[in-house]
Structures are given as C-alpha cells and as structure tokens.
C-alpha cells in the first residue's frame, strides 16, 4: 500500500510531470516563470490548491454526484467549487494572515483558471483513485509543477541577461526551453 502511494507520488512529480509531460497548467507556467521569487510563491500556492481541490472534488464526486447519479455534472460542479473555494480561501488568508498573503495568497486567484487543478481533479476520478491516492497524486503533481516552475524561472532569469535573438525573445524561447526540459525529463521515464 505504502509503496504504491509513494509510486503514485513519484510518478506524478517526475514521470508524469503536470507541465512537462501532461501539458497542463501552461499559462501560469509561462506567465509566472520570469522571476524566481514569484515562481516560488506560485509553486507553493499551486501545491496548496491542488491538495485542497483534490480532496473537495473527490468528496463531491463520491458523496454527492455518484449517489445521485449526477456524474455528468462533474465538470460544472468541480469548477464551481474550485473557483469559489479558492476565492474564499484567498479572502480569508488576506484578512487573517497578511504576510502569508503577500508571499502566497496573491497567487491564489491565478490558480482558479489553471487547468492543472481541474485536470488533476478529473484525472483522480478517472483513474478511480481512493482519497489517499488522490491526495498523493495531487501532492506529487503540485510539487512537480513547483519544480518545473522553479527551474524555468532560474533559466529565464539567466536568459533575461543573455543575447537572445530578437525574434526568439520571450515566449518562443520559453517554449523551446520547456520542450528541451520536457525532453530531459523523459530520462525519468520507466522509473519506479
């Protein structure tokens, strides 16, 4: 059991990295990866929201939708719940812990429309994970996102002061770098 959980976790971080292998959450991956500081904040925020969302959506699916035979409302209810919850948490954090808000909370709204969150929630259901497995998967995905984002931010800080050709500056070089990073991460395949 434990080994299986660890496997799910590791696979989610490295082998099926949300960004580099599943291609989810690209908008913030490209958008928030220009500075290491904000990448760190965003990374932690994503881990948090992924965990929260996967717990809540798993519960909704298994305690509400399945019993009522309303599986077809999956998408709409998940996104509604994720969006509202995140917004709620953001407001609470902002009021009660301003310091935390400055380093993490500001990124929360950005995550609502991050398809990694909804994507991982859906994958959890699709693969029929139980709650613990779902949490392990979400944690791995979040950490994987964090890693990818941090690496990318480091690279982009360096690229920022390099002589990149004019037409490659910004998004193109970021995507090519992401592609090469994804190639590098293929090295993890078959692990576990």
């Amino acid at each position, binding site marked *: 059991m434990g080994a299986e959980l660890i496997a799910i976790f590791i696979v989610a971080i490295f082998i099926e990295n949300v960004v580099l292998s599943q291609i989810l959450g690209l908008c913030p991956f490209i958008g928030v990866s220009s500075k*290491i500081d904000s990448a760190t904040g965003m990374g932690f925020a994503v881990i948090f929201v992924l965990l929260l969302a996967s717990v809540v959506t798993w519960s909704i699916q298994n305690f509400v939708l399945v019993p009522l035979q309303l599986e077809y409302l999956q998408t709409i209810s998940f996104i509604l719940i994720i969006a509202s919850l995140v917004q709620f948490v953001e407001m609470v954090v902002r009021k009660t812990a301003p310091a935390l808000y400055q380093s993490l909370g500001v990124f929360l709204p950005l995550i609502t429309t991050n398809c990694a969150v909804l994507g991982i929630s859906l994958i959890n259901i699709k693969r029929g994970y139980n709650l613990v497995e779902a949490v392990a998967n979400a944690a791995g995905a979040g950490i994987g996102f964090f890693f990818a984002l*941090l*690496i990318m931010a*480091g*690279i982009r*800080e*360096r*690229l920022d002061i*390099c*002589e*990149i*050709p004019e037409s*490659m500056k910004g998004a*193109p*070089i970021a995507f*090519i*770098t992401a592609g*090469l*990073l994804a*190639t*590098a*991460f*293929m*090295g*993890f*395949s*078959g*692990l*576990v």
Partner: protein
Amino acid sequence: MNTTTAALNTPAHGLLVTSSPHIYSGLTAARVMWDVNIALVPALAMAIYNFGARAALVVLASVLGAVLAEFLIQKFLMHKPVCVSDGSAVVTGILLAFCVPAALPIWVAFVGGFIAIALGKQVYGGLGQNIFNPAHVARALLLGSWPVYMTTWLKPGAAMSTGAAITDAMTCATPLGIIKTAGRDAELVKQLSESGTSLVSYVFSQLQIGFSDLFWGINFSGSLGEMSKAALLLGGLYLLIRGHITWHGPVAMCATVFVGALIFGGTLEYAAFHLLTGGLIIGAFFMITDMVTSPMTGCGQLIFGFGCGALTLLIRMKGGYPEGVCYSILIMNSLVPLIDKFTMPRKFGQVKAKEAQA
C-alpha cells in the same frame, strides 16, 4: 609645443587606444575549442579502430550537420558574422557522434548535428548563451525520435559500409543494456543469486570480456566514442593540463557514481563496472565540463557533478533507460542557473562587512 622626433609626429589617430588591461593571456575561445577537438582525437582513433570507416562517416556527417547549421543560421537568419572557425560547432558535432551507435544511419547523424546547433545553441543566440548541452539536446531528441536506430549497437569489427543493411548478426547488446535487462528479469536474478554469480560477471560472461576490455574499449559495443576509457582519460588529462577544465566536475561525478554504486550495489566490482561503462567518462570529462552549460564556480561544479552522478546512477539502476548520463546532464543543465545563484563566490570583505554592522 614642438615635437622633437619625426617618430613622435605620428598622426593622432594612428595610436591604438583601448581600455586597460593592455595585455592578455593569449587564450581565445577558438583556441580552447580546438584544444578540445585535439583532446578528442584519441577517442576518435579508438572509434575508428573499433568500427572502421563507418565511425569516421558518422562523425563526419554529424560535424557537417553542425557546421552547416552554424553557418546557415549565422549568415542568413541572424545576419551576424559567421564564426564557424572557432571550432565550437565541430566540438558539438564530434561529441554528438561520440554518443551515438556506429550503425546510426548517416542521415540521422547529419540531422542530429544540425538540430544540435539549431535547437541547442543558435536559438539561444549562439556560443555561450545556451542553457542545455547542444550535443545532448540532439542526442535526447534523436533517441526520442528514432529509438530503434539509436539502440542498435554494431559489433566492433563488424565492418559496415554506408549502404549495407544491418543484420542481427552484426549487432549486440551493450554491457549496460545487458545488466538492465538481466536486472529486470526476476527469474534470471533468482537463478544468478542461487548460483552465486554476480550480475556483473553474468554480463562479462555473456560478452566474454573483462574489466580491461572495458577500460581499453575493445571487444564490446557501445556508442562510438565512449568505449575507450583510456583514450578519453588521455584527452581529459590534456584538457586538465591545458587548464581548460577543472577537476571539480569530473571528480565529483565519477566519485558519486562509484560510491553510490558501491553503497547501493554492494560490491566493488559493481561500482567499478558502473565507472567503466557507458558514457560516464566521456560525460564527466567532456560534457559536464562544457563551460557554457555548467556552473561557473568550483563549488557549483562540485554540486553539478554530484547531481549528474546521482541522476545517472538513479536512471541506470531504477529507470527505464539502461544509460542515464545524457539525461542526467540535461536535467542538471536546467538547474545550472539555480546552482549559480546559490554558489556565488565570497566577495572579498563581505563577511567582515556584516560583522562590522552587527
């Protein structure tokens, strides 16, 4: 003010005015790169010894692809002065050819050289700007694109010319390939442990070789240039003596693999096997020392080398691929900016300044 000698009357703008310093070490980028090419010659010789003209052909195709890409892109896309003659594209081409099998179709080698420079180097603005090791970028992309070609290993001595089709008789597995498949085969592992033979001796018996073959790079198969550790070490030593590389990276990487294999594999034999197989030596001496894609300080290079070694071993022992040098280097390349950030050299007077404030 009257001048006294005619010589002093040189026209004003005849004198050269530049900022200090006015003397230079004489080292140039081109010199460094051509020295690396020289250092690669012994390994090239061994490759030709093992695989005949085929080896030369693959190297040539890859170098041609690299140089052509460099030339075309600089000339027509960037409109920059062409600096093919600095030899860095040649290094990339040779090193790429050194980590592919000898049986690789010539056109694949050419494409590899081309994308190494195009996608690995020029998109970032050329020499010195790239994040990833261009040769490895190309190798990883080739491996992903044409896995069959990239894992068809020619038997040494099985002379192969351009057109000849590859038959099963001409191919064989690499030591790392055998140990990987053997390790996955639970039944075989059980048999071996019952009979008391180690995995390594199983590999040796399968290939009928020993450690000295591994060291000299004969009688087994592998990528073109990675086989002869002796030749590579010779080249590495040359670079060390010329001062183009430092000991930090290579030592850290080799030591990590050796010690790691010793701990997780249990035997000295196993550790030595990992040290002498695959692309470890060429990676440690020629690839993680690529100054462009590795950390700048000694401390950073130690971390970098350690990371490469650890990932290599992880992939070799647990991962899907038999060999992990290429991917470990690429992954560590991506971490270089972060490593650089955290291993800034200590500024003279820095700590004291803090003490003084406190």
